[in-house]
């Protein structure tokens, strides 16, 4: 009974320890306050960089670590105050067409970044900011689609000259067409069935009327919900990006929710106003020649030509039901826009009388800027203010009276993609409401973080002292394993599975600290038992580990199963807790069993041992063994 690990096993453990250290160490490097500048629709060049640095020098703001890439510029600052002042200075210097975002830049050494080691993301509860939970009105999305179907069906039947006794929308997913005889019905069915693969057709008769029922399949409904949520998420993400807030989060949650988290933003009222604005896209006519200068505003189109746009809005963006960039029959790129029924009527009415004039699409975006103001107490404070910025994204000639579905042509494929992205960012696929809102002040976030970290420290210290006192040298091995375990959890959470650390997450880690020593307690009590039963020390170690193993495995596997169930079913805090629990179980199995065994083997292995420093046992005299 030599209790020695083969060299490869020791090397493997050492390797895991080193990796654990490497991947958790970035958390010790505090981030720099930084500003990131990107162009809204063009690449940046050296002159932009020069403008930025001159502006900062002129405003006497210290900066360092300037990074320049084709698509972005990053500048670092020593303090939040300087960062905010710099944002205003850069905004004034650069003008429109740029996104200037407050950001945090990692200070992790580049060789650590090169191996993919990063920092753990802090949840909003630990760094402060605004949290919104928005619910997408799925009924409206489905209703909109069904209304589309209704009017398309009507058009087809009219074109094919099939007579009906009426089309009715029974509910969101059900539409009926009434006919006078079966011939009309079967003809209609034959015409329609290929055009509407998402609908189920069914014949029915009622009081001498022949009815064709069109129902949306459950799969289609699911698909619409998925598409709508995805589309709304993209829209919100685009708007939030344009806002210039550091590291915003926009995530889907469940079947119909979107979580928006804006770290650092402290005024929820303005943020709500901004997020809830639905129509940010406007269709206008170009001002007629010689029109009064009061009736139009001048915008610069993407080619740099000034265009006078009439003030009257002919169509709002919320009438758009779908936008895509496609190819026409000649393979030329185009942007196809589908409007809802009302929007179709509106645009048709206006364009009918204005064939040959130009139509302009304006995108209005909400952005933020920081102003330094003097408050009541006479102090200088920085206030973040949201403002609206409109720009011209399309200028095209009306060739004919436009129907509900029309295309914008004459674009390059990049332009077509960009335009369809811009249009979709200006319209939501379905309306949304805010169902939950909370603001966590930065001081409260810092306090939560501080208390959480202190909780971990005190808990770990208490457990370490107890283990040392109760199990002596073996306790020391368990303590080293415990510290390794915490490091590994941090390493996994910051680099391998990029997870966000929240308060429940910290509590989860603290709890694993308490429970992780359980495996060692099981092993050590087993070793003590073996010693009391008269086993010689080396054999006691070996069979102690051996016999405790199945128990530990069973206990951890069942708990792991519970964590998997919680992860699959739960969301939000429940999911976060489950993740920490799963990571903790895996890492603690490794450190508590393999890790401590390696240490014990190093201490006692390969030599004659008379007594073990495991505390609290009546050890057999050497002669007896």
């Amino acid at each position, binding site marked *: 009974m030599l209790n020695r690990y083969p060299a490869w096993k020791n090397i493997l453990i050492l390797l895991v320890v080193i990796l654990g250290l490497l991947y958790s160490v970035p958390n010790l490097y505090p981030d720099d306050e930084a500003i990131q500048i990107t162009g809204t629709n063009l690449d940046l060049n050296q002159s932009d960089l020069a403008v930025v640095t001159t502006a900062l020098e002129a405003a006497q703001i210290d900066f360092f670590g300037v990074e320049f890439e084709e698509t972005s510029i990053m500048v670092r600052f020593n303090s939040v105050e300087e960062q905010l002042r710099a944002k205003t200075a850069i905004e004034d210097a650069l003008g429109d067409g740029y996104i200037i975002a407050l950001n945090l830049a990692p200070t992790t050494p580049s060789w650590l970044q090169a191996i993919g080691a990063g920092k753990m993301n802090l949840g909003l509860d630990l760094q402060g900011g605004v949290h919104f939970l928005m619910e997408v009105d799925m009924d409206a999305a489905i209703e909109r689609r069904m209304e589309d179907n209704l009017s398309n069906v009507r058009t087809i039947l009219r074109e094919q000259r099939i007579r009906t006794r009426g089309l009715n929308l029974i509910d969101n997913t059900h539409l009926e067409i009434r006919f006078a005889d079966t011939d009309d019905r079967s003809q209609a069915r034959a015409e329609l069935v290929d055009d509407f693969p998402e609908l189920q057709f069914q014949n029915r008769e009622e009081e001498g009327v022949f009815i064709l029922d069109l129902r949306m399949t459950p799969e289609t409904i699911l698909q619409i919900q998925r598409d709508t949520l995805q589309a709304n998420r993209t829209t919100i993400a685009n708007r939030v990006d344009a806002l210039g807030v550091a590291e915003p989060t926009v995530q889907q949650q469940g079947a119909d929710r979107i979580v928006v988290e804006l770290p650092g933003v402290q005024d929820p009222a303005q943020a709500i106003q901004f997020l809830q604005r639905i129509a940010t896209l406007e269709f206008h006519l170009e001002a007629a020649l010689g029109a009064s200068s009061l009736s139009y505003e001048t915008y610069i189109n993407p080619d740099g030509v000034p265009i006078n746009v009439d003030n009257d809005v002919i169509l709002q963006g919320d009438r758009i039901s779908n936008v895509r960039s496609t190819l026409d029959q000649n393979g030329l790129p185009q942007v196809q826009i589908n409007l809802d029924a009302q929007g179709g009527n509106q645009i048709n009415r206006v364009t009918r009388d204005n064939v040959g004039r130009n139509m302009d699409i304006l995108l209005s975006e909400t952005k933020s800027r920081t102003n330094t103001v003097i408050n009541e107490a006479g102090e200088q404070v920085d206030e973040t203010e949201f403002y609206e910025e409109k720009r011209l994204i399309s200028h095209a000639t009306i060739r004919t009276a436009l129907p509900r579905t029309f295309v914008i042509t004459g674009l390059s494929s990049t332009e077509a993609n960009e335009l369809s992205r811009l249009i979709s960012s200006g319209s939501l696929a379905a309306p949304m409401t805010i169902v939950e809102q909370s603001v966590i002040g930065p001081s409260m976030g810092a306090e939560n973080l501080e208390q959480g970290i202190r909780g971990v420290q005190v808990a770990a210290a208490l457990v370490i002292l107890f283990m040392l006192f109760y199990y002596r040298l073996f306790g020391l091995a368990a303590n080293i394993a415990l510290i390794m375990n915490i490091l590994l959890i941090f390493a996994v959470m910051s680099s391998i599975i990029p997870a966000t650390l929240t308060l429940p997450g910290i509590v989860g880690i603290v709890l694993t600290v308490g429970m992780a020593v359980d495996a060692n307690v099981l092993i050590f009590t087993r070793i*003590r038992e073996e010693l*009391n039963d008269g086993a010689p020390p080396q054999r006691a170690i070996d069979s102690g580990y051996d016999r405790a193993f199945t128990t530990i495995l069973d206990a951890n596997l069942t708990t792991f199963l519970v964590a998997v169930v919680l992860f699959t079913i739960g969301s939000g805090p429940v999911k976060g807790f489950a993740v920490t629990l799963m990571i903790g179980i895996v890492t603690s199995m490794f450190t508590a069993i393999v890790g401590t065994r390696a240490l014990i083997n190093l201490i006692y292995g390969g030599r004659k041992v008379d007594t073990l420093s495991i505390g609290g046992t009546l050890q057999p005299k050497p002669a007896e063994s």
Partner: protein
Amino acid sequence: MRKIMADREIDFMGVRHFAGIGSIVLVLVSLVSLAINGLQFGLDFTSGTSVRLSYSEPVVLDQVNSSLQANGYEDAVVVSFGSDREIRIMLSVDDSILESDQAAHAVAVGETIAELLQRDSSSEVTLLGSDFVSAKVGAELAEEGGLGMLVALGIIMVYIALRFQFKFSVGAVVALAHDIIITLGIFSLFKMEFNLNTLAAILAIIGYSLNDTIVVSDRIRENFRRLRRGSPEEMVNISLNQTLGRTLITSLTTLLVLVSILFIGGESTRGFAIALIIGVVVGTYSSIYIASNIILLMKVTKDDLMIPVKEGSELDAIP
């Protein structure tokens, strides 16, 4: 110390009937309290507006209460939040306002309340934040949590039935249900707030209590297989005595951690810590008395736990 324990075996199973009756009483009291009092649901589950304020000097809650009452906020609940200078005011949801406007409304209510309390107070009142909390999310999470618990219990039953034996899975699941019901019962009885953190704690209790029960069951299985003589009752007793040290130490280290969260972790994690402390204490007791009691009630025998001989297995010398 260990030696002394081994000599003086504690006759756990001798009092198992009393323990069983005690547990039944506790579970019944919990159920009755849950039926009558229900749970004191936090805003997470009821919807409403929460306004957080800080005072430059210690606050007298009664004063705040009376100024709110005088100004038309009759249903406001005021609690201190973290320290004696910070308070949280909870208002039930105003149904006359559209759901889409609730969030904006919460912001306005916060400002109004901060102004009115400032008028009635000599210390400086700062508005820390005002949130609209929707019950939708809470209700869904509770549903998810409840469903999660049921699915988890089902999977555990199957796993234990496969690894151990069916009687053990009944024991483990009854012990889990026992722990959860009693923890909820204590929350109901003492009218402590039940919020999302508490829900997470209840889920953690499942993991913890299960861990304990499995360790004890594992030893019972081993002793049934290993020891030649002794009644099932004696064997369970021996197993419980052998695992007692470990059970107590693990509970102790976990409690050390939880107590430090309770005192240091701040207001936001307090509910979590309290729920888990109750759960750990009840869970430790249940792993000793409930699971083994059920196993004995179901007349566990040696044959239940014998390792089945694999057909076609052969012994061969290594060449």
